[in-house]
């Protein structure tokens, strides 16, 4: 068990455990008696108590109260202390005249005894209740109408300062980590301003915080006081040290007075601010120009005001959040509307007005969708976001992930702490790594601290007592790797945005689905049309052809030569028409035929194609180059053969060089997909024709040049490649030759080595 720490053995190492309620001493401006009830005899007295009764304090012990006060005064005490419970709440029960001095008599019960505290009344008159009441009424009316918690606190501290005459009044809020933050300040000119400063948690240790929650107001008229001990030290009723938790005159910790002295404070008054029963913060009043005693009436009024502030702070802060909430809702609605309008939600969230940064208070954000990362504001790099998303996806099944210190779970995040110590992430779908991310920087980047929380404490001249630090220079903190926390309502807003985005995606995919279905249907219809049309067209065509031939047969001897020529042209044109119809039929069949992929040795396939083109190769004297053996791939054999056949025969055809060559080869990408090419040193293609050459029946040359053809070969070859999930394109320079490329996706290719 740890030793009990009291005023006797406290130092900086243990002040967070100092039992300050057992200080065993009081402030010197008043005196204290503890009374045994119902006997009304004196149990303990502060060492200065005797003065007011012309006795030694030790002589007071055991005496009945009647021997100190006149019977009327004792009756008043008895009557008042019986009327009220007085438990843990010192209340003025009387004003007594003792030795020519007026005293406020404050009474409360605690620790099984009745406490009577005597506090001297000001000699130059105390403010009237009427004056205080009107002051209070004005103050309350003012602060009640404040529109934000900032305005509210500003008004409150200004009023209290005007009211009490302190040099400085601060409203001080405790944050989640126990550190303090000066939210509002009213200070006399010439004094250092503490507004906006953060104080480390150690400045107000837990025991002090506990006492603050017990009483509404603490007042030290003179920091430079000498504590007056209470005799005897222990409470005779309990046998333990007297618990001064509620005593108005309780002597405070030497650590506290030392601290105040270092701030140049001579007198102080602290009021507690509670929100929903919990310590929200303090109103701290400091005087820097000598001792200052605040009269009881004024303190009561201040206490009342602090009470009002406590009651209202909740409402004012909610007001602030409700403003934020409204803004969130509004921004959210606008985002969702823009997203459904555009369909491109990533674009809207990043580049739109409003965008992600307008929604939640953050410095940066990212949208990760289909592997594409879009960043806005101060964000980690794309690679960092990528690794963060990978980590999120593998470690978090939750739809929403929020942390103010991602480093604690993902150490790599230290690299980008300056921009993203805090992260709020929402995931759209469990199956995809699609995220929205908001980033908050390390608090260190933004917060000013009063004093260096890591600086070793100062040691006083005698080397015996440690003093709290004296440096109050601005210092940037040490809540390393932490950001401002995410509010519940922000996380809620992220949740809602996620649902809205999912709806947009769903609607989009429904629309796309419909579109796709329509497209598929019209595609099928088109194919069926091409097929049926070319069939049906053939019948009359055949009739025309046959009849022109029959005419020639039957009437050749009666026709002039030019008439015979015309009939022959007619027959020839029908022939050409049939070729075109056949190409069309073939093209439409490519998309109808079932693909039967099997492992194909492309060396064999190409060899067969070359064999079938042997005559033309020989005629043109073209050299065939295959720089390295082709791979074996899973593919529909007749299709790939047709692609090579079309490309190679084109390469053979469109060449006017004396030394012709055609090269057939392939490249393999990292992802495993294969790119094949057929290259020639032929006539080449002008860039403006790169697209048209793939259109069906589009020919760049007359039907008699370069051996003619229907102009469907490339269209068919590309269609085949597309059906296999690849694509085909051309690179060429007129006069230098062309290279036709086509890809076979990785899944299809499964390259089985090059042999």
């Amino acid at each position, binding site marked *: 068990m740890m030793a009990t720490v009291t005023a006797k053995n406290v130092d900086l190492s243990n002040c967070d455990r100092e039992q300050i309620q057992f200080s065993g001493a009081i402030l010197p401006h008043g005196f204290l008696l503890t009374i045994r009830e119902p006997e009304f005899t004196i149990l303990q007295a502060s060492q200065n108590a005797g003065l007011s009764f012309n006795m030694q304090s030790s002589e007071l012990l055991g005496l009945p109260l009647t021997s100190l006060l006149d019977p009327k005064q004792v009756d008043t005490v008895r009557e008042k202390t019986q009327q009220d419970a007085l438990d843990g709440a010192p209340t003025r029960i009387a004003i007594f005249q003792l030795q020519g001095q007026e005293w406020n008599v404050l009474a409360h019960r605690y620790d099984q005894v009745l406490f009577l505290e005597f506090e001297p009344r000001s000699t130059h008159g105390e403010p009237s209740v009427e004056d205080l009441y009107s002051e209070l009424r004005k103050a309350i009316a003012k602060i009640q109408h404040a529109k934000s918690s900032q305005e509210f606190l500003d008004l409150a501290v200004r009023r209290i300062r005007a009211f009490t005459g302190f040099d400085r009044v601060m409203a001080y809020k405790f944050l989640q980590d126990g550190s303090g933050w000066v939210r509002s300040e009213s200070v006399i000119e010439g004094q250092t301003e503490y507004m906006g400063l953060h104080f480390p948690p150690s400045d107000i240790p837990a025991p002090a915080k506990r006492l603050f929650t017990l009483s509404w107001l603490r007042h030290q008229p003179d920091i430079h006081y000498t504590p007056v001990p209470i005799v005897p030290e222990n409470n005779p009723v309990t046998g333990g040290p007297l618990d001064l938790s509620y005593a108005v005159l309780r002597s405070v910790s030497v650590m506290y007075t030392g601290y105040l002295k270092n701030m140049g404070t001579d007198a102080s008054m602290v009021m507690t601010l509670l929100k929903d029963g919990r310590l929200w913060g303090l109103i701290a009043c400091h005087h820097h120009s000598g001792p200052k005693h605040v009269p009881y009436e004024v303190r009561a009024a201040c206490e009342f005001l602090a009470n009002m502030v406590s009651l209202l702070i909740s409402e004012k802060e909610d007001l602030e959040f409700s403003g934020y909430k409204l803004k969130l809702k509004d921004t959210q609605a606008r985002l969702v509307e823009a997203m459904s309008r555009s369909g491109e939600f990533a674009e809207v969230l990043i580049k739109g007005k409003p965008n992600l940064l307008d929604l939640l208070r953050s410095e940066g954000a990212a949208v990760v969708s289909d592997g594409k990362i879009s960043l806005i504001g101060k964000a980690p790099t794309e690679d960092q976001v990528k690794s963060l998303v990978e980590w999120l996806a593998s470690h978090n099944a939750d739809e929403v992930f929020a942390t103010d210190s991602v480093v604690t779970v993902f150490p790599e995040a230290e690299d980008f702490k300056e921009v993203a110590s805090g992260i709020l992430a929402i995931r759209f779908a469990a199956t995809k790594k699609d995220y929205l991310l908001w980033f908050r920087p390390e608090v260190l980047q933004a917060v000013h601290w009063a004093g260096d929380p890591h600086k070793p404490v100062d040691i006083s001249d005698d080397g015996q007592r440690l003093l709290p630090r004296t440096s109050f220079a601005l210092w940037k903190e040490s809540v390393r790797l932490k950001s401002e926390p995410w509010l519940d309502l922000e996380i809620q807003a992220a949740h809602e945005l996620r649902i809205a985005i999912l709806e947009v995606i769903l609607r989009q995919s429904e629309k796309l689905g419909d579109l796709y279905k329509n497209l598929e249907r019209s595609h099928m219809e088109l194919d069926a049309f091409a097929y049926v049309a070319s069939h049906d067209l053939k019948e009359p*065509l*055949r*009739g025309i*052809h*046959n009849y022109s031939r029959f005419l020639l047969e039957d009437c050749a001897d009666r026709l002039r030569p030019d008439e015979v020529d015309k009939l022959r042209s007619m027959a020839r044109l029908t*022939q050409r028409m049939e070729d075109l119809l056949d190409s069309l039929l073939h093209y439409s069949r490519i998309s109808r035929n079932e693909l039967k992929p099997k492992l194909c040795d492309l060396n064999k396939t190409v060899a067969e194609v070359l064999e079938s083109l042997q005559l033309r190769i020989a005629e043109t004297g073209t050299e065939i180059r295959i720089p390295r053996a082709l791979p074996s791939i899973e593919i529909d054999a007749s299709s790939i053969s047709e692609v090579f056949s079309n490309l190679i025969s084109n390469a053979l055809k469109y060449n006017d060089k004396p030394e012709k060559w055609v090269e057939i080869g392939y490249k393999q990408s990292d992802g495993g997909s294969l790119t094949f090419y057929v290259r020639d040193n032929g006539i080449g293609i002008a860039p403006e024709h790169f697209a048209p050459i793939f259109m069906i029946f589009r020919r760049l040359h007359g039907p008699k040049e370069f051996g003619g053809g229907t102009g469907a070969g490339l269209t068919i070859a590309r269609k085949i490649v597309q059906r296999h999930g690849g694509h085909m394109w051309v690179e060429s320079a007129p006069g230098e030759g062309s290279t036709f490329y086509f890809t076979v996706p990785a899944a299809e290719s499964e390259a089985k080595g090059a042999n």
Partner: protein
Amino acid sequence: MHRNDPILIVEDNDEDYYATARVLAKFGSFPVSRCSRGAEVIDNLNADKSHRPPSLIFLDLNLIGKRDGRTVLTDLKADPRYRRIPVVVMTTSSNPSDVRHCFDHGAAGYMVKPVNLDKFVESIEGIIKYWFEIMTLPAKVEGAS
């Protein structure tokens, strides 16, 4: 060469019928009869009083009317009186599924009508030579007995 066996052409298109008949005449003196509707085929065969059923039937697939070439083929092959007569399908369709269907249902041959007359003449010549010179037709055997 004695080519005077009757031939039936099932064809709804007058031009095609004319062309076929005309080309056939180049290779023999076949008594050619014609059905232009699928539904007529069995009826006409039944009504024939010559007692000389066709030795060969040319059948177009895509016929106008309810009974197209495919059903005519099925009807013929289902009738014991006519199922032995070879049916050569002569059509515009080069659809593989049509080819399969016809052979599955008893067609003796399948020919895609070319647009080119020379090719057509060649094809007809080949078919006539095949069936009337190389092959032995059941009608012939029956007629001789």
